[in-house]
């Protein structure tokens, strides 16, 4: 009923019978938040409202230097080769996409003249094409004009397999054509409800055709522009030392009025997170430091009487414990954790549920994550409209014990449960990382109380997260019973995030363990829901499908969500950054200024 009403109201707004604000007010009245109401409108085909920009300076420049501290320094400055957020952050100072996600998760035009919508004719009703209108008069840093050719070229460059661009998936399965100098049309093979992927955000940065044309495909590494970027961004390139320093100066020709505010920019790399926090919060040597994953009590101590503070951006990153559905200890056809096996203990739903009951998120939050985490029962934690309200986590050793009892695991003489002479023993692996080892300890303790013997294992991060086929200790080989890590949600649409656990993506020897479905969980309903959502153009039905996916994972206890993690940044008291949990930290750099 709510669905139908809602749809009617969205139609009213779209056709102008109801104004936007009235809609938002009604949504708030039924218990939704304003950003959520806006999101519903946005996905309902109503043009996105841009959040009021708090940018105050009334002229360009004059802000002096802006000093950024990234404890992992950017190593390359081509956004289409970026191996990590650090590289995306660095290249984003100079390059720009057509639009970026703002603080509230709305699309904000950068190089686009407007955000495509059904009203302005940008979006096709069948969700099979998008027309982007480009901002006129934009110039590359070398003075050449920016045009539709550059956008088309960027697509050709990134989608060419020989270029080996990391953004290639973003540009596959579509064609991009020039309509005129300031208009491009993207055509999708299938209806694509999440059309705002190509040319938006980190992988959406447009590169200049006149400098990269010769370096498409196999010669991509040879472009000198990989190290000396020429973009359209708010700052012009001066100097780059990989892993150490990026320096830029104000772009006096920048295409947004009164922007940017700072005269020079410096991004310094290296060191560790704690000392980065210290340089910003305590001594004020730097203005902003990225990704301060430090225990909260340390930050609280630094913040006392300091020159800076911590900021939190809410995205969808999730720390979870995944459960192995196959047997890691039996080898079939030379493969452990083979799809031909079933986990001897964990294939019992009751044992999985018992495990979920033994994760004390409250303590984990209190002892480890503090302000940087939110206890959660969901794998999918944002944006709001995709978050399930049907799940609820609980910590109870008694209930867990009862479930294990039911499943036939009786307490043995040493306190460890056993069944058919076999002990209830699990191997729990994760990467080496302070908070993860502490979480392991908390979970292990609870498990012990319930009679489960948990053996802890920690693997060096560079091995655990590697794609090395020959290494049995990677998370995707998953030669353990349960394992824990974080999956970042890189865009405010769940499609990529949820597609991972489709049964066609099971990690096996055959695909060299490159499939992202490492729990090796197969569920027909889940597959069907993910497939349906991929082409579902009705936003409300689509959100329902993803909520269903999340709930299926919860019901089957495929993974135990532990913490919804927020991005933690350190910032000087005077600098006003524009941060979004759905974007890179430097994505809205043109809107940063200093309060004097």
């Amino acid at each position, binding site marked *: 009923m709510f669905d139908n009403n809602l749809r009617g109201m969205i139609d009213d707004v779209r056709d102008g019978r109801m104004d936007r604000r009235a809609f938002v007010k009604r949504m708030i009245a039924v218990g939704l938040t304003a950003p959520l109401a806006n999101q519903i409108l946005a996905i309902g085909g109503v043009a996105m409202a841009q959040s009021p920009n708090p940018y105050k300076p009334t002229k360009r420049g004059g802000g002096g230097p802006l000093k950024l501290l990234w404890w992992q320094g950017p190593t390359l400055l081509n956004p289409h080769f970026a*191996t990590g957020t650090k590289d995306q952050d660095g290249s984003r100072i100079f390059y720009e996409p057509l639009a970026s996600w703002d603080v509230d998760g709305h699309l904000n035009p950068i190089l686009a003249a407007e955000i495509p919508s059904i009203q302005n004719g940008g979006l096709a009703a069948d969700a099979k094409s998008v027309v982007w209108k480009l901002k006129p008069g934009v110039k590359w840093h070398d003075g050449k004009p920016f045009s539709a050719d550059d956008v088309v070229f960027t697509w050709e460059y990134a989608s060419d397999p020989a270029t080996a661009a990391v953004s290639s998936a*973003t540009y596959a399965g579509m064609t991009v054509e020039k309509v005129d100098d300031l208009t491009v049309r993207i055509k999708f093979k299938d209806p694509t409800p999440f059309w705002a992927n190509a040319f938006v955000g980190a992988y959406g940065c447009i590169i200049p055709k006149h400098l990269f044309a010769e370096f498409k495909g196999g010669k991509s590494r040879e472009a000198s522009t990989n190290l000396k970027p020429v973009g359209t961004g708010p700052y012009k390139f001066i100097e780059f030392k990989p892993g150490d320093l990026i320096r830029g100066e104000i772009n006096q020709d920048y295409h947004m009025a009164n922007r940017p505010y700072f005269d020079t920019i410096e991004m310094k790399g*290296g060191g560790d997170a704690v*000392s980065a926090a210290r340089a910003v919060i305590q001594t004020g040597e*730097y203005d902003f430091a990225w990704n301060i994953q430090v225990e909260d009590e340390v930050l609280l101590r630094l913040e006392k009487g300091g020159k800076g503070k911590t900021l939190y951006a809410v995205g969808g990153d999730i720390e979870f414990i995944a459960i192995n559905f196959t047997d890691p200890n039996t080898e079939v056809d030379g493969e452990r954790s083979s799809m031909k096996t079933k986990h001897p203990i964990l294939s019992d739903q009751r044992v999985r549920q018992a495990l979920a009951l033994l994760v004390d998120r409250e303590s984990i939050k209190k002892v480890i994550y503090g302000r940087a985490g939110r206890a959660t029962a969901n794998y999918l934690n944002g944006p709001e409209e995709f978050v399930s309200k049907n799940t609820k986590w609980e910590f109870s050793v008694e209930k867990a014990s009862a479930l294990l009892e039911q499943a036939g695991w009786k307490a043995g003489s040493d306190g460890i449960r056993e069944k058919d002479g076999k002990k209830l023993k699990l191997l729990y692996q994760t990467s080496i990382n302070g908070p993860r080892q502490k979480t392991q300890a908390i979970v292990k303790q609870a498990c012990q109380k319930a009679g489960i013997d948990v053996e802890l294992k920690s693997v*060096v991060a560079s091995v655990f997260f590697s794609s090395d086929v020959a*290494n049995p200790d990677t998370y995707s080989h998953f030669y353990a019973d349960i394992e824990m890590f974080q999956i970042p949600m890189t865009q405010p649409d769940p499609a990529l995030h949820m597609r991972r656990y489709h049964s066609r993506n099971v990690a096996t020897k055959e695909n060299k363990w*490159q499939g992202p479905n490492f729990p090796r969980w197969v569920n027909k309903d889940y597959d069907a829901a993910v497939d349906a959502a991929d082409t579902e153009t009705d936003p409300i039905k689509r959100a329902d499908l993803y909520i269903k996916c999340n709930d299926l994972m919860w019901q089957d206890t495929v993974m135990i969500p532990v913490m919804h993690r927020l991005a933690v940044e350190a910032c000087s008291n005077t600098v006003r950054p524009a941060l979004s949990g759905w974007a890179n930290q430097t994505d809205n750099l043109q809107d940063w200024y200093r309060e004097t």
Partner: protein
Amino acid sequence: MSQYILRRLMIAIPSLLGISVVLFVVLALAPGDPFSELATNPNVPPEVQAALRTKFGLDDPIYLRYLHWLAAMVQGDWGFSFVSRINVDTLILQRLPTTLYVIGSAQLLALLIAIPVGVYAATRPYSLFDQLANTFAFIGFSLPTFFTGILFILVFSVKLDWLPFVYTDVPGSGIPWLLEMIRQAIMPVMVLGLFQAASMTRFVRSAMLDVIRLDYVTTARAKGLGQAKVIVKHVMRNAMIPVVTLIALQMPAVFGGAIVTEQIFRIPGIGSLLISSILANDTPVVMAVTFVFACLVVLFNLIADVLYGWLDPRISFR
């Protein structure tokens, strides 16, 4: 003598070759892969990762990769960094000036402290000065640089707010630029220099004590030579032989030992390049940097040998 140097250099080639084989095999067998950050990223399809691995030759057998590396190296091509996708020599040359500036200054500071203090302490063994010098030397080399580094930061940056603790390339030129470059180098140079000075002082002192008791020194004194002349001309020159060995052989180790200091103060030197490359599994860079260290060891050995001959003509080159 030039023949001697040439001969020594020829001998160095097989040893460097051996070192390179060992380094290469160890790195190839070490786990990890440079594209690990892509592995958890749902935007990056597995095909791209596989394509990158093939493109960078990561799937070739070890001996083939080694031969490729050797062939390129002989032609002066150091390979390119997987992570930055730029040439390794560019990367190293970018870092070298900073390393030389900071490490060089620290080494100089160490010498300026160690030689006078060590010599003076040796001339007056068990005096108050000697006792004090010894005590400080012991404290100095028992405190690791990561501890003194953080201590310095807490005192001079956080408490007193005198010095910056992030070392960065300051833009500009002229006197203010020079002053700023000196200001930010003070803490790392002190940390590293004092640590080096401590062990070196002990060494200089004991080398001096060994020589100072020899008969020819007594003879020189008996001839009526002044104390200063005896110490500088007769004792120091001979006592410096083991000290030169120590300093020469320590040079490569200093580059390595500075890794910690470089990390604490974010100094963009070779040491921090090595550590970040190891963390990123950037094998070509790790290979090149460690190989440079190996070359430095060989080179400084040679320099020490040449210096022996100059300090003590009895050691001849054959």
